[in-house]
């Protein structure tokens, strides 16, 4: 029973990473009907930006500023900077290909990812960095279950971000334009909406979210390397498909589901089988529900 509850906490933590990153895939798909395959590497770049900002701020302010304040500053500054990475990817990578077949955009995304990985290797070298702890880790023992404040923070911060995004999508004019585009894009420009505003904004939000996920990830698993975005990126992509292409809610829920499947499979099967069984389960779900949880049937407009 203890292990069961312990696993729930861990599943929520991993689910948070997947959920926040997979939202980036889903939002871009909703607006442009393409998957940004560089998103996993945008997560990596965001983590490195967060690492740089954290190191800098700790060196400058740790003497007279409380840790939580530095933590919030790191998040805000990193989000801001990382959003430009998203805008850059959209403008340089995808905008010139808007009329091109979707396969070209997919290949471009993969290439941008490789450029980020190797670019990072060239600039920072092969040494691994360690993300500095911004929050002093405290472990609570609640009836035999060990909960660290970092885990709680990861889960809470992710939920707060997703709620903020939900408000943005529901309430603001840009959010409404993003929603509208995912249902029918031909009418949206007639409302005076420029796709060259909405598309980069979508990429910026995705990158901003991914960078915060990266900072939180760095608090739990501090080792940084240039390929850290690949596996997490692909898993988040799977979550985006499972949730239903273009559905933000679906992506978030599927992200958590993925976290739970990954955590609970090793309770029954040998842990080396984890991914094999976890992704077989997802394959079965998709066989019976190819649209994912909230995907729309009219996504047959898929132009890949």
């Amino acid at each position: 029973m203890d292990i069961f509850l312990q696993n729930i906490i861990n599943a929520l933590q991993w689910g948070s990473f997947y959920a926040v990153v997979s939202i980036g895939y889903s939002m871009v798909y909703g607006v442009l009907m393409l998957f940004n395959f560089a998103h996993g590497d945008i997560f990596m770049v965001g983590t490195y930006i967060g690492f740089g900002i954290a190191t800098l701020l700790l060196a400058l302010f740790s003497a007279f500023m409380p840790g939580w304040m530095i933590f919030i500053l790191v998040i805000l500054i990193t989000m801001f900077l990382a959003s430009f990475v998203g805008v850059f990817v959209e403008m340089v990578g995808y905008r010139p290909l808007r009329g091109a077949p979707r396969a070209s955009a997919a290949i471009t995304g993969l290439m941008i990812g490789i450029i980020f990985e190797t670019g990072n290797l060239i600039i920072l070298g092969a040494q691994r960095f360690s993300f500095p702890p911004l929050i002093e880790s405290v472990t609570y023992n609640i009836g035999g279950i060990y909960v660290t404040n970092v885990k709680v923070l990861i889960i809470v911060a992710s939920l707060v971000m997703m709620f903020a995004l939900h408000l943005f999508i529901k309430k603001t004019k840009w959010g409404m334009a993003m929603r509208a585009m995912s249902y029918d894009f031909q009418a949206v420009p007639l409302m005076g909406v420029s796709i060259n505003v909405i598309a980069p904004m979508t990429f910026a939000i995705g990158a901003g979210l991914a960078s915060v996920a990266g900072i939180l990830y760095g608090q739990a698993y501090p080792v940084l390397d240039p390929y850290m975005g690949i596996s997490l990126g692909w898993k988040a992509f799977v979550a985006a498909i499972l949730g239903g292409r273009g559905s933000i809610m679906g992506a978030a829920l599927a992200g958590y589901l993925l976290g739970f499947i990954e955590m609970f499979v090793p309770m029954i099967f040998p842990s080396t089988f984890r991914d094999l069984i976890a992704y077989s389960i997802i394959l079965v779900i998709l066989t019976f529900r190819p649209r994912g949880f909230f995907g729309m049937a009219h996504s047959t407009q898929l132009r890949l």
Partner: protein
Amino acid sequence: MAPLLNVRNMTHFFGGLRAVSDFNLTIEPGEIRGLIGPNGAGKTTVFNLITGVYNPTEGVVELEGENIKGVETHRIADMGLGRTFQNLALWRHMNVIDHIRMAHYSQLTYGLLGAFFGTPKCRQQEKEVLDNSYKLLELFDIDQFATHNIGNLPYGAQRRVEMARAMATRPKILFLDEPTAGMTPDELIRMIEIIRQVHRDFGVAIFMIEHRMKFVMDLCESIQTMVFGEVIAEGPPEVIQNNPEVIEAYLGKEDLH
């Protein structure tokens, strides 16, 4: 003074196919004009060319004397051109009131920070937009559906939402692409009333593609007939109705039957 809409010698090729050739059109403020023609004549292409979906191969397109040829659709929309679509371009899973609010996009001038902090300007604008949206819903007799999901509305009501949405952008000229397609006779009569009302209350010019002769004849002051990308006849409804070339295009040559 320059006419509201001025199209001169507009020609467009899709590859080697001449889809529209030498199209001319002048619309003055407050006019209602119709465009008829058999399927595949290029009517919707004319709409797409003027609204900036395609860039015409040749010709002049001006709105209030300003060039709109090759200008992006969202800019043309902001300059005062509204449009509805033949196959309802509505946003499934969004409710009716959000459709109308969305159409006020350009009238909401607050910035990202304003939205984030909920400044008085932002709230004020949002409130005005919401009020105006409800007014439009009432005008188009769809206020009872305000919070309904668009997909659950009867077809005729969906058409009215699309028109209300177009009017929310405050157009000077409204393009209607087959506004009565798929409508029941009752809904059709309702639509004629609504278009008259929109025309009267907003003083907007209207340019419509329509298949139902009675509808066009009732509403339009002048009608163009298009066949294979070319305008073969132009004039007031009664003239068009009796034009032998138009009759031939619609019904075929007499001796063949």
